[in-house]
C-alpha cells in the first residue's frame, strides 16, 4: 500500500511523537467530541442538542433519512457551519482553530473546485496549503485508482458529476489528516469509483485515522466499528449494527 494522507501527516510533522503527545495525530484526545451540539435555522431545528464522541482511529457510519441532521453534524465538525448551541472539538482543539483544520479533512457531497485549475494544479495547491510538497507518488496512486490518470491535466469544471466527485476525493485524501469526515461518498460514483472509495476508506482507517461517514447505504455500516443513527436531528441508535438493523432503524 502506498503512503496515505495519514502517513504523510506523520512525515510532514517531522516530530511524530510530539504530535501524538499533543493529541493532534492519533493521540489520546477523541477525534471528535460534540457536547450539546445543536443547529437551528430560525424556527427549523436541523440538529437537536447532540452529545457524541468519536475516538481517535475509530470508524463510524452516520445514517438517517434526508434531513435527519447527518450533513449538519459533519459540516459543524468541519467548521463550515456554526452551532446554534454547544461545542465541538477535534482532537482536543476547538473546531475551526489552526490545529483542528490541520487535523480534519472534509469530503463534501458537493464537490467545490476552482474553474481554472486542472486536477494536477488542484492537487499541488491543496497539498502545499497543508504543508506538503505538491504532486507526489501518493497523488499519482490516488488518481490512478480513481480512474483519473488520463485526466490530470484537464479542468474538473468540465467534468461530469462523478469525475468531479473523484477529484474531490483525491483532494480530501492527498493532504495530511487524522480525522476524515465524509458526506455521502458514493453519490455520483460508478461501480469502479465506489469500490476504490471503499478501499481507500478502509486504508485510511487502517492507517489509524478516524473516519466518520454519513451515508444512506445500509451495507456500509458492516464495514465500520460503530453506527450512529439520526432521526429528525436526534440520535436514535449508537453502537455496532448490521445492514438489517439499519433498515429497521431508518428504513434507508
Amino acid at each position, binding site marked *: 500500500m502506498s503512503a496515505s494522507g495519514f502517513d504523510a501527516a506523520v512525515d*510532514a*510533522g*517531522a*516530530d511524530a511523537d*510530539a*504530535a501524538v503527545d*499533543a493529541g*493532534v495525530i492519533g493521540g489520546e484526545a477523541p477525534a471528535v467530541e460534540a457536547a450539546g451540539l445543536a443547529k437551528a*435555522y*430560525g*424556527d*427549523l431545528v436541523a440538529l437537536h442538542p447532540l452529545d457524541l464522541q468519536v475516538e481517535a482511529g475509530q470508524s463510524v457510519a452516520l445514517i438517517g433519512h434526508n434531513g435527519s441532521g447527518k450533513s449538519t453534524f459533519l459540516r459543524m465538525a*468541519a*467548521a*463550515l*457551519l*456554526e452551532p446554534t448551541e454547544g461545542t465541538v472539538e477535534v482532537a482536543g482543539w476547538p473546531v*475551526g482553530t*489552526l*490545529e483542528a*483544520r*490541520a487535523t*480534519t479533512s*472534509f469530503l*463534501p457531497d458537493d464537490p*467545490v*473546485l*476552482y474553474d*481554472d*485549475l486542472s486536477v494536477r494544479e488542484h492537487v499541488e*495547491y*491543496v497539498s*502545499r*496549503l*497543508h*504543508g506538503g510538497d505538491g504532486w507526489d507518488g501518493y497523488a499519482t496512486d490516488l488518481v490512478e485508482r480513481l480512474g483519473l490518470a488520463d485526466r490530470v491535466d484537464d479542468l474538473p469544471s468540465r467534468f461530469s458529476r462523478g469525475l468531479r466527485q473523484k477529484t474531490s476525493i483525491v*483532494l480530501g485524501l492527498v*493532504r495530511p489528516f487524522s480525522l476524515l469526515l465524509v458526506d455521502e461518498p458514493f453519490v455520483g460514483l460508478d461501480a469502479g469509483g465506489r469500490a476504490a472509495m471503499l478501499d481507500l476508506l478502509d486504508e485510511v482507517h487502517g492507517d489509524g485515522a478516524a473516519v466518520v461517514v454519513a451515508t444512506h447505504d445500509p451495507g456500509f455500516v458492516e464495514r465500520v466499528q460503530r453506527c450512529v443513527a439520526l432521526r429528525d436531528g436526534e440520535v436514535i441508535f449508537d453502537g455496532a449494527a448490521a445492514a438489517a438493523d439499519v433498515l429497521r432503524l431508518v428504513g434507508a
Partner: protein
Amino acid sequence: MRDDLPVPASVVADLRRARRRQRVAAIHWVDALYQVYITGIVAAGAVLALSTVVGDSRLDPAAIDRARASGPAVLGMVAALAIFVGLRSGSRGGPLAVEAADVRHVLLAPVDRGDALRAPALRQLRFAAFTAIAVGAAAGQFAGRRFEGNGAAWVACGAVFALCVAGLGLGAALVASGRRLPSWAATLAGGALVVWSVADVASDLVPAGPARTAGRIALWPLGFDPLGLVPIAVAAAVVAIGLAGVAGVSLEAAERRTSLVGQLRFAVTLQDLRTVLVLRRQLAADLPRSRPWLPSWRRPGRALFPVWQRGWRGVARWPAARLVRLVVLAVVAGFALRGAWTGTTPLIAVAGLALWVAALDAVEPLAQETDHPGRRDAVPLEEGRLMVRHLAVPAVVMTVVAAGAAGVSLAGGRSALEAEAAMTAVPPMALAAVAGAVSSVLMGAPKPFDELAVASPEIAGMRTAVRTVWPPLLAVGGVVPLLVARAAVESGRPVLDAAALSGAVVLGVALLVAAWVRYQSDIRAWWAAASEAAMKGGGATEAADAGGTP
C-alpha cells in the same frame, strides 16, 4: 502540535498571482478596449444627465446660507446610510465574497486566515476608494459650479468626503463581519444612526447626529471646520480594525454569500430583476417561515378559489423582516407623499418607487408561477387565466400598504380636504404599484437571442433603459392623482373630482396591464405565428422573384 503551522500564506499569494496572470493573458485587447468604450459612454451619459439636472447658475447668498446650515446634516445622512448598509452586509458575512473553492480549500487549510483574506479585502477597498474618489470628485465639480469658492477645492473635498463615506461603510462591514455582529444588532445600531440622522435633517429640536460631522467635509470650501477631520480618522480606524480582524469571518456566512453573490452579479448583468430579488432574499436569509403567522383555514371539500387561497397562504408565511420592510416602505412613501403634497414634486418618484418595491414582495405568488413555468403549465387552466387570478391578493396587500402610506402622510392632523385627496389616491397608487411589479416579473431577463441581439450597443442600451424604467414608471404614475388633487386645491377646483378623474386614468392603465397578463401568452403565440407566416411569405416571394418554386 505540528511545528510547521500555520502554513505560510505565500502559497495562497503565489497561486493567486499565477491565476491573475492567466486571466490577464486570456483577455483580448479588443475586448478590453470595448469595455472601456462602454464604461466611458455610460459615465459620460450619467455626468451629462446629472449636469442637466443640477444646472450651473450660481446660488444666491440665502441658498448658500441654507446649504451651510443644513448641508452637513443631509450629507451626514448619506454617511449614516453607508454605515447602516455596511453593518447589515457585515452581519451577513460581507463585504468579501471569496470564491467558494477558496472557502473550502484555503479557509479550511491551516493557513492564517487573516493573511489569506487581507489581500481580497484590500483589493475591494482599493476599488471602492477609486470609485468613491471618481464619484465624489464629479459631485464636487457640480457643486463648484453653483457655489462660491475654488473649483479645485470643491472637487478635492467631494472626493475626500466620498472616500470617507466609502471607508466608513466598508470598514463597518469588515468590523461587523470579523466580530460576527448579530444581524439584529447591526440593524439596531445602523438603524438608530440613520433615524438620528434623518431626525437631524428634519428637525432642529434633535441634537446634531454624529454623522453630521462627516457632512462637514464636503462643505469645507464654504468654511473649514476641523470637526470634519474626526470622521476621516474614524474611517481610517474602522478600516484598520476591520482589516486586522478579517480572519474572524464566519465560514457559514462566507460560503452562503460566495455562491449567492456570484449569481447575483450575473443576474444583474442580465437585468433579471426577479432573480436578483430571489437571490437577495436568500443572501439576507429572508425566507418563508416554517409555520405561518396564522394557521391555515381548511374547509372540507373543494376550495372555491384555490389561487386566492394559495396567495394568502404565501402571505401568512412572510418572514418578520419582509413585514417590517413593507411597513418601512409604507412610511417612506407616506413621508414622500407629504413632501410632494407640500410642494416638492419630485418626491412622487420616491413614493412611487417605495410602493413598487413593496409590490415586488406582494406579487410573490405570481412570480413563483413565472419561476417554474413547468409547474404552471401542469395546471389544467389556461396560463393567462391562472396568472390573472394571482393579481387579487397583491392588489389587496398593496391597498393596505398604500392606505398605510396615505395614513402616514396625514399624520399630525391634516385638513379634511387633504384626507379626501389622500384616500382617493390609495386605489390608483396600490394598483399602479402592482402593475409595475407584475410588469417587472413577467418581463424577466431579455432573451439572449432575438432580433435586437445583434443591434449596436446604443440601440440595445436604449431597449435596456426602457425595460428598466417602464415598471417603476408605472408605479410612479400611480401617485400622479395626488399631484392633480394638489393642483385642484391650488386653483380652487373640486379635489375629489380631479383626483377621481386622474385616478380613473391610472386604473385604466392598471386594467390594461391586467389584460396583458391575461392575454400575453395568446398575443405571443399569435405574434410568433404571424412572424412565421411572414417569413414563409417572404421566402415564397423571393423564390418567385428568382423564378423558382417556393
